[in-house]
């Protein structure tokens, strides 16, 4: 105690005791206040039976879904918001930044600006949108999230008159997709496959193509320390399923999910594989990883943009099952219900669906192919995609034979979560 300690009317111990009393009293008051509301009251209204049915039986290619409408689309006569800032919420490195500037220029007489906010994975993106931490005008979810977003009334229906470019420019299957019949809420952004990317300077093309099951190359201890797989719950477990011949990558069968999980743990044990998101487009380009699970767009982006200067793009190779029976997917663009500039958001969607803009986005920067009817996939090689990556071109027929990673019911989702936790815990 300091020299003046004695001047206090009570000892330090008493002083501390009294402070502690006050410290305890404050939060209990908060708790008593909070107790006035029932738990779960913030989750909104209870879903109706139609909505519960939609969530329990999510869309599949053979079970197309028409999503319920809770409001009308904005009228086509809605004026463009003057001086607005269009809030775009997207994956990082997934849209050519120059297009934002071009959009601003095209709408300069309205004084609009574009602001980009990014998420690291789609679970985070959707969670932040749902909790209101972000209020974007345009969002880029994949089909597995659409139903949940719609029944939670987080999306607004699209005014088709304001988006003529979809019907003019895009594959017919995306004008009436199985996950959103009549495209009430979504327009397509890009399409991709999930295959295997590899460094051809270390692994010859013949090696992977002569294997009876080329997925097994990711389990090959010869490439110990040089293997990367996606740090993505559903993609990684889908690899475990499809390698074992299970085409239904949305299975709810616990024994199959368990088998996939065990096989992924074996992969990590055999090759010390790293779970990454940028393992292909950044680190394979830098020769850190030699073989990895890869989205087609990632390896194309690596070739277009990320290889060090002077390295020829043909060091990169990509394998996808020739029968088209691998994992496929697409991303969409939607307008959240809370959008502050819905008319401008419609303009942006139509702008991104413009033939030239979509093409420039794909070929200059992004590497992810848009499903444009004007693109003849076979002509992309070698103009855009180097010959060694010819299998990274997404063909329309893949959408007949490939496996879509899609939404699952909450109880099945919990099984995937448990398997994922086990993989991530390094068991």
């Amino acid at each position, binding site marked *: 105690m300091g020299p003046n300690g004695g*001047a206090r009317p009570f000892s330090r111990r008493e002083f501390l005791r009294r*402070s502690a009393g006050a410290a305890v009293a404050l939060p209990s008051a908060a708790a008593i206040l909070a107790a006035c509301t029932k738990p779960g009251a913030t989750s909104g209204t209870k879903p109706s039976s139609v909505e519960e049915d939609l969530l329990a039986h999510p869309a599949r290619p053979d079970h197309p879904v028409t999503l319920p409408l809770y409001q009308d689309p904005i009228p086509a006569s809605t004026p463009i918001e003057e001086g607005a800032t269009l809030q775009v919420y997207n994956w990082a490195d997934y849209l050519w930044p120059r297009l934002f500037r071009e959009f601003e220029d095209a709408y300069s007489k309205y004084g609009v600006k574009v602001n980009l906010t990014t998420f690291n994975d789609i679970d985070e993106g*959707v969670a932040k949108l749902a909790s209101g931490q972000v209020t974007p005008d345009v969002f880029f979810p994949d089909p597995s999230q659409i139903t949940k977003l719609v029944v939670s009334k987080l999306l607004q229906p699209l005014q088709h008159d304001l988006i003529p470019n979809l019907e003019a420019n895009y594959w017919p299957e995306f004008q009436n997709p199985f996950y959103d019949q009549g495209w009430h809420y979504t327009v397509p952004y890009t399409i991709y496959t999930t295959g295997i990317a590899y460094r051809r300077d270390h692994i010859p093309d013949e090696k992977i193509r002569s294997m009876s099951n080329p997925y097994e190359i990711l389990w090959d201890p010869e490439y110990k320390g040089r293997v990367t797989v996606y740090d993505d719950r559903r993609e990684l477990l889908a690899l475990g399923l499809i390698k074992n011949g299970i085409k239904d990558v949305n299975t709810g069968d616990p024994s199959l999910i368990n088998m996939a999980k065990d096989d992924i743990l074996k992969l990590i044990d055999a090759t010390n594989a790293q779970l990454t998101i940028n393992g292909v487009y950044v680190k394979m380009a830098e020769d850190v990883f030699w073989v990895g699970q890869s989205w087609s767009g990632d390896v194309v982006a690596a070739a277009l943009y990320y290889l060090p200067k002077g390295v020829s793009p043909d060091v990169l190779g990509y394998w996808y099952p020739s029968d088209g029976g691998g994992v496929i997917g697409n991303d969409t663009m939607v307008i959240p219900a809370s959008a502050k500039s819905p008319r401008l958001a419609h303009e942006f969607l139509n702008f991104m669906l413009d033939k030239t803009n979509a093409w420039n986005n794909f070929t200059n920067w992004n590497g992810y192919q848009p499903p444009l009817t004007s693109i003849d996939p076979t002509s992309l090689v070698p103009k855009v995609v180097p010959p060694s990556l010819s299998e990274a071109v997404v063909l329309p027929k893949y959408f007949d034979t490939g496996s879509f990673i899609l939404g699952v019911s909450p109880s099945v989702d919990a099984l995937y979560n448990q398997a994922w936790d086990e993989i991530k815990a390094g068991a």
Partner: protein
Amino acid sequence: MRSEVTAPAPGRGDQRVTRKRARAVTDGARSRALYPRWYWPSFAAPATVWLAVLFVLPFFVVFAVAFGTTDLFGNPLPVYQPWYWSTSTFTGTLQRFFGADAFYRPALVRTLVFVPVASLLCLVFGYAIAYYVARHSGRRKGLFLVLLISPFWISYLMRVYAWQGLLQPDGLINKVLVAVHLVGTPINWLEGKPLTVILGLVYGYIPYMILPLFGFLDRIDPNLLEAGRDLGASPAKTFLRVTLPLSRQAILAGMIIVALPMFGDYYTNDLLGSTRTAMFGNLIDTAVESPGGGPQAGSLVLMLMVLLIVPLLYYLHSTRKAQEVG
């Protein structure tokens, strides 16, 4: 706190204490007359509010999340009324440590190995450095102190990214190791090696060990060491019998300061290890990032706190004992 009122020290101190107490009584009487009762307690208000807002309240929210529920998107819905709390996630999480399929256990075991090993390495290297700076750096002491603090000028994240580059298969460290024929082929340091993660932890936390040790060692009265030597002790014996016992409290403080945050560290392993070197902090991180993982993350946080209370109580106990002795 040495209690002046209840346990007067013997001898000369006795008189001093008595005088002081007498003054305290008169001062106390005067202050009661001048100030209202709430005057002095109100000085604690900032600290009390700080404690309540930044510790007690968030701690209660962790409980509310751990025993709460989630919405359709997996966002946690905290439940603030203890009578509605559900313990199912908590017990389920415990099962993952101690149940039949205890797949969290390896991460717990790794944490209980990595952290003590890394803390001890921090101590060994940190002690040597602090000892040198305190005792032998002469007039360059200021320079050494600046050098010790300088890593804080660059974000830990940036520095670990630099290590990633250095440790890559074709990075500088492997090039040197191969060039001097210490190893035949490059070592892949980043493929989930416990050694890399432990050294990463040491690298990240060692300044927090050196600074308190330096503070203590620097204040040891040189006369005590001279006395030791005068009484015939060798330099080694002086160190063991004088310096080391005097720095016991500093060692304990340094160990606590580095070990506690290491237990919650997840980014060192994220950047330098893999899932195979996942630690307790990575379990929490994965839970936070998984949809619906909020309650589980809350449960893990509570379990980690229980784990950390043990060394903390030991530290408090031993400092109190040291104060009673001193």
